[in-house]
């Protein structure tokens, strides 16, 4: 699988209203907190249209989460890598990747997740 370049754009689908600020339309740290396996699931969207991104979410993520998508957090790979994290392709599904190399403590990961949320752009599903 090909390496993910720093300028590549990624998206994280958001299912919980607690993961974004509804009035300001900005992303909150919860959107980027790693799961028990110390991973955050994202999709590579540099060469994908906006409509296609939502289709990826509906087809690949909604069935697993069992919840409707509320929006997504778009972020550059370089904004993730600057915190010592790595983004590695993990297919299937197509274009899927994981953010890995998280820290050992929840507090350290919260500090990074706050920064990632600040760097991300929230896109609401209309």
């Amino acid at each position, binding site marked *: 699988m090909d390496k993910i370049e720093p300028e590549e754009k990624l998206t994280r689908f958001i299912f919980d209203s607690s993961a974004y600020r509804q009035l300001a339309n900005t992303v909150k740290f919860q959107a980027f907190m790693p799961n028990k396996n110390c991973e955050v699931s994202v999709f590579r969207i540099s060469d994908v249209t906006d409509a296609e991104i939502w289709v990826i979410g509906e087809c690949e993520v909604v069935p697993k989460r069992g919840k409707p998508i509320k929006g997504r957090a778009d972020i550059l790979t370089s904004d993730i890598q600057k915190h010592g994290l790595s983004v590695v392709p993990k297919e299937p599904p197509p274009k899927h990747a994981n953010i890995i190399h998280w820290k050992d403590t929840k507090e350290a990961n*919260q500090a990074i997740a706050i920064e990632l949320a600040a760097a991300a752009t929230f896109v609401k599903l209309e």
Partner: protein
Amino acid sequence: MSVIANTAYSNINVKPFYSTGFGHESDKIRRCNQEANRAYENAEIFRPKQLILQELDRLYKECSEEGWDGEDASPMTDDIYNEARKLLDCFPLTSFIQLPEIIVDYDGEITFEWSTDTRHVLLVNMKGKNEITYVGLFGTNKVNGREYFDGTTLPPAIIDNLKKTYLIS
């Protein structure tokens, strides 16, 4: 999803009226006291705290069993719930510092979040061990730390960081 009704009011410290008196005047005083207490309990200034305590109770009910997230999340323990409730109880009722959002993590711990924008964020974690940890971003400044929480007094470091979140942003 059910809500534990009225439990929030138990945190508002209303002094009960005890009297061994009897007769018309005594009944009148007792009624006046009851009306005053009702007005005190329903005062608008307590509304946000009542609502957030109800929200904490709701989350406790929802997340107190293993696998509450549909996967393998740890339960919120009584110790964590009680510590969170005590911390909320310590909170000053002010118009410029809002009460936090409550997040239950998959490890069963509670995180309180205050934020005014993407770069003014304070997180306080409760583990139910009389120790709270915090992580904050204020513009370009980052803070983190660990404080002993005796269950009655909000640690000064938390108050200082709340000021940074709300007053300096």
